[in-house]
């Protein structure tokens, strides 16, 4: 056997071992969701069924929390992307003594552990009556993603040539017109990445809504799933697995949409928090 072939086979074998280790919990999720008598072990369902899915597809368990997630994360994403696009424009186009410190502060902020400020945020929200409101929570969620979105957006905007803008300027277009009619359409793929990435991060966020929302009917899926399995003992694992799949599917699909552009070097542009 040639040396190159041996190296390849050894690498394949090592990767397969790691992949199986990573796969086991995922396999449990899929198999249990199809098993009416699922427990905590990975095993093939004796008679596969979609019973678990039909049991959780009710207003109370699935539709309301998913709709809450969508409202919460959707509005926060739109707000983040709009503010980030506006902010990125002067940062990308104008030079001044002020832009470098601003950008460094932004980069610094992307790395701060947001978890640490949740106690004062809660205190602040109590004082201004924003606790247990969807819009308050969504404002904070938007702000938490804003530094990274501005950073990313600015980098994408730097890649758009300024020639067309200059033409528009001479034709008398305002700054807002230039931004919305010329720059943003030219950086469509970049905008999509920022938008989807922000949405994915917010969709999975647990701590922020866990702290700031209290009423059961306002909880997003990330928190409702927790109350679901928080009461150990009486959990129907198959249903919980089915709900987990329903809750995870949107982000998995969105990630596939942008994965090619997210690969590797992208991440170095700033902190990516899990």
């Amino acid at each position: 056997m040639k040396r190159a072939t041996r190296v390849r086979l050894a690498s394949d074998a090592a990767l397969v071992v790691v992949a199986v280790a990573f796969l086991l919990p995922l396999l449990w999720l899929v198999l249990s969701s199809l098993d009416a008598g699922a427990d905590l072990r990975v095993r093939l369902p004796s008679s596969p069924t979609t019973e678990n899915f039909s049991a959780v597809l009710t207003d109370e368990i699935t539709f309301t929390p998913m709709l809450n997630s969508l409202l919460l994360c959707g509005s926060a994403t739109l707000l983040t992307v709009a503010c980030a696009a506006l902010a990125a424009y002067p940062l990308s186009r104008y030079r001044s003594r002020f832009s470098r410190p601003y950008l460094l502060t932004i980069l610094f902020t992307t790395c701060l552990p947001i978890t640490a400020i949740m106690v004062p945020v809660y205190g602040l929200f109590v004082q201004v009556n924003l606790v247990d409101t969807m819009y308050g929570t969504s404002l904070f969620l938007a702000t938490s993603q804003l530094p990274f979105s501005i950073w990313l957006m600015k980098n994408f905007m730097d890649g758009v040539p300024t020639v067309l803008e200059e033409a528009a300027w001479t034709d008398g277009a305002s700054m807002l017109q230039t931004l919305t009619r010329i720059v943003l359409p030219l950086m469509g793929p970049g905008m999509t990445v920022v938008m989807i990435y922000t949405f994915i991060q917010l969709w999975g966020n647990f701590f922020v809504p866990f702290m700031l929302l209290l009423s059961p009917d306002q909880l997003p899926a990330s928190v409702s799933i927790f109350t679901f399995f928080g009461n150990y003992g009486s959990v129907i694992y198959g249903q919980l697995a089915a709900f987990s799949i329903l809750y995870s599917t949107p982000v998995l699909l969105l990630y596939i949409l942008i994965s090619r552009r997210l690969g590797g070097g992208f991440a170095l542009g700033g902190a990516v928090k899990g």
Partner: protein
Amino acid sequence: MRWLPLAPATLLLLLFLAGPIGYCVWIAFTNTQLTGSSTSDFVGLANFRRAFADDNFRNAVWLTLVFTFVSSIVGQNTIGLALAGLMRAASRPVRTATGAVVIAAWVLPEIVAAFLLYAFFRREGTLNAILDWLHLPSQNWLFTLPILAVSFANVWRGTAFSMLIYSAALSEIPKDITEAAEVDGANGVRRLWHITLPMIRRSIGTNLMLNTLSTLSVFGLIWAMTRGGPGNRSQTLPVFMYDQAFLKSLIGYGTAVALLLLLVGALFSIVYIRLLKVEV
């Protein structure tokens, strides 16, 4: 006028980020409690003195160090690098499949990941089933080694990020350099130590920094798997902070802990930005 578009973002950042951080600094020096309403007096450094004398706080610091060291520095970083390296030598289908599985674990929402690994590590879960099958002793992992269980959960969830960073870094090493070393008779270990690692040292630095920062703030994963227990044996700083501020209603004390966490994060951020030598 030209800088006006910065206003909405700046306003949000000041109100909801700078504001709470400033408030955090203030509250940390008071004895604010959740109950008993308006009793909020300035107490100076009392909260910090209390923290450093508190066994539970020291336990949380120690567990945070263990959690960060095991899951981020050793686990995510080393496995991520190994996976990125192996993928370059492996055949295409194996590479694609492994990448997909590892990345899926990363993209899944935090709470789903917590739930999956809770099932994996439970007494009646998959890990013990495998150990039984191999005739190895099984145990109740979430009870006997809770901090290791949550560390492994964090490795499972966070390795993809390192893998992506290292894949990008390795693909930028010019082929002729490694080939030249190979011709000169350097074996795999020496090539790794003397060529590959020095050439990707900046990526190693940034990756370690980002992994450490995101691991420092992990809350949901631990809370959902063990709630910091049994007792306080998996109570890292964020969980301790939550426990003191909300379950024990000691907002002032909890915030002091949060401020310490924030300071560590800020320190890492500054090192990170230096390391990146960003040109903006």
